């Protein structure tokens, strides 16, 4: 990206172009990130409302669109309250690594073939490293607010984050094994546009790796089956019990941001990020230089949002695990399967250097069958309760 820019502005020295480009990316990502968290929180409350047969926010602005703006400004106006005997410096410091940890991962997310913050050749390693920052923030928040509930919340988040980092990284290794490089752009370009060439269907072990990746990413983002750190019903509000106003919003942004990052990673690593079929590509490039990029960004967003919506729906269906069950799932179930999938993929690539087409189609059709059964089952549920849920007033 930098080379094309330096051609555009030949007179500027190389380092100045680099500095400007970094500044633009930083501003873009921060605004995108904070603007992203609001609408998603509105979307989640609407979906939650619909699942619970009620209506989410629809009074604030048309259909409640600017509900998040009202929440943000209100929290901004709240009193800046720090508990008297809390650890002042750590208390103020805690929200920033959490917010930073998630924002930094956006830098290497490939929105389209050209549109990427910085195409590091150690992209994946960088993302996992940046995600590690979040743990520091949570533990600092837990310890510094001098409240027993937050202490418990902080300890729980430490245990959960660390023990779910391992299956996460192992399942990423499978992708690195198949694509041969850590940089996200090359991972995506080594996957084709049609579903068969995606990594998820390349061999059954990669399919298992994808499932492990999703589960541990949900745990990494503190979403529902694993939302023990801010367990609403046990530890009052977990690590953010003592936080109010703007500081609480930083934790809020981090949680939604994590949601997007999980969706984006799943799309780019396993589902061939911005790859668009050849037909569209030459149709678009015929129109003009910009159009293919637009198509690519749209394809990437489409794939990301499927997972974001699924994780949101997951939150309103499943209860919460207990701490020891959380550990059991990570160590007894996810990590062994992650090892199996790495060894399996390695053997698979030795036995079938260019991949076994029949298995790819088999996996693809099994995935479609699962989705079909899901839709059929949902309609069956609807008919089962004879959609009496809208059983209005009897009177």
């Amino acid at each position, binding site marked *: 990206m930098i080379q094309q820019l330096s051609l555009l502005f030949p007179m500027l020295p190389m380092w100045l172009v680099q500095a400007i480009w970094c500044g633009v990316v930083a501003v873009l990502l921060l605004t995108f990130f904070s603007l992203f968290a609001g609408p998603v929180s509105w979307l989640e409350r609407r*979906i939650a409302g619909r699942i619970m047969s*009620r*209506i989410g926010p629809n009074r604030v602005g048309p259909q409640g669109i600017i509900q998040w703006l009202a929440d943000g400004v209100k929290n901004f106006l709240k009193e800046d309250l720090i508990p008297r005997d809390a650890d002042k410096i750590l208390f103020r410091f805690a929200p920033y690594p959490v917010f930073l940890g998630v924002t930094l991962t956006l830098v290497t997310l490939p929105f389209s073939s050209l549109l990427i913050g910085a195409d590091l050749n150690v992209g994946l390693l960088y993302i996992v490293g940046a995600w590690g920052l979040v743990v520091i923030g949570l533990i600092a928040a837990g310890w510094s607010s001098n409240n027993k509930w937050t202490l418990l919340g902080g300890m729980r988040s430490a245990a959960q984050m660390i023990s779910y980092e391992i299956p996460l990284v192992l399942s990423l290794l499978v992708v690195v094994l198949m694509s041969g490089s850590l940089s996200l752009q090359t991972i995506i370009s080594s996957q084709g546009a049609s579903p068969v060439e995606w990594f998820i269907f390349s061999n059954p072990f990669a399919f298992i790796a994808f499932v492990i990746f999703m589960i541990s990413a949900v745990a990494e983002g503190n979403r529902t089956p694993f939302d023990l750190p801010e367990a609403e019903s046990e530890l009052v509000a977990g690590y953010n019990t003592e936080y109010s106003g703007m500081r609480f919003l930083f934790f809020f942004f981090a949680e939604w941001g994590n949601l997007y990052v999980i969706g984006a990673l799943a799309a780019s690593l396993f589902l061939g990020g911005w790859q668009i079929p050849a037909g569209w590509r030459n149709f678009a490039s015929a129109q003009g230089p910009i159009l293919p990029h637009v198509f690519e960004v749209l394809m990437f967003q489409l794939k990301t949002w499927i997972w974001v919506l699924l994780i949101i*729906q997951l939150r309103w269906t499943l209860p919460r695990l207990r701490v020891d069950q959380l550990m059991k799932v990570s160590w007894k179930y996810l990590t062994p399967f992650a090892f199996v999938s790495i060894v399996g993929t390695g053997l698979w690539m030795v036995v079938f250097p260019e991949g076994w087409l029949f298995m790819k189609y088999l996996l693809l059709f099994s995935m479609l069958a699962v989705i079909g059964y899901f839709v059929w*089952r949902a309609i069956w549920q609807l008919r089962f309760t004879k959609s009496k849920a*809208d059983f209005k007033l009897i*009177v």
Partner: protein
Amino acid sequence: MDYFKNIFESAATVFEGLTITASHMFRKPITIQYPDRTLSPVIEMLPSRYRGFLEVDMKICTGCTLCMQACPIQCINIEIAKKTPSPQPSPSRGEGDGGGVPMRLITKFNIDIALCMFCGLCTEPCPTGAIRFSKRFENATEDINKLMFKFVEEGKPVAPYKKSSG
């Protein structure tokens, strides 16, 4: 063994849960959007027996204070003044004074809605059904004295209704 059974079970039940929540996405929400976006105001939707705020029809109230005695927490207080007929114009009822007989006049009939527990024990002994439940329920206020419902204005006492002997 049960290691794989656990995995299969949790996968199946999570799948089942997701289908149920997905099926809920297609159902209409049953919210009655209270203040303004309802088919008809919520008051009409309430059944006939709904116990809202108390209302007293002073025209048929005989001033027998049975309701005052029936209320467990005395939130109804009625004052009856004994007034011998005086030359000033007869009270609002406009009936004849009927000679020197001392007139009973209800000077105060307050119900403290902030205290009331809407139990209905006062509406039962009332001979003429003057005190009964309206269907109103909206009366949130900023100061508590507005919750003292006064059914007789200060100045104008009301003569109790004489039940016709027939």
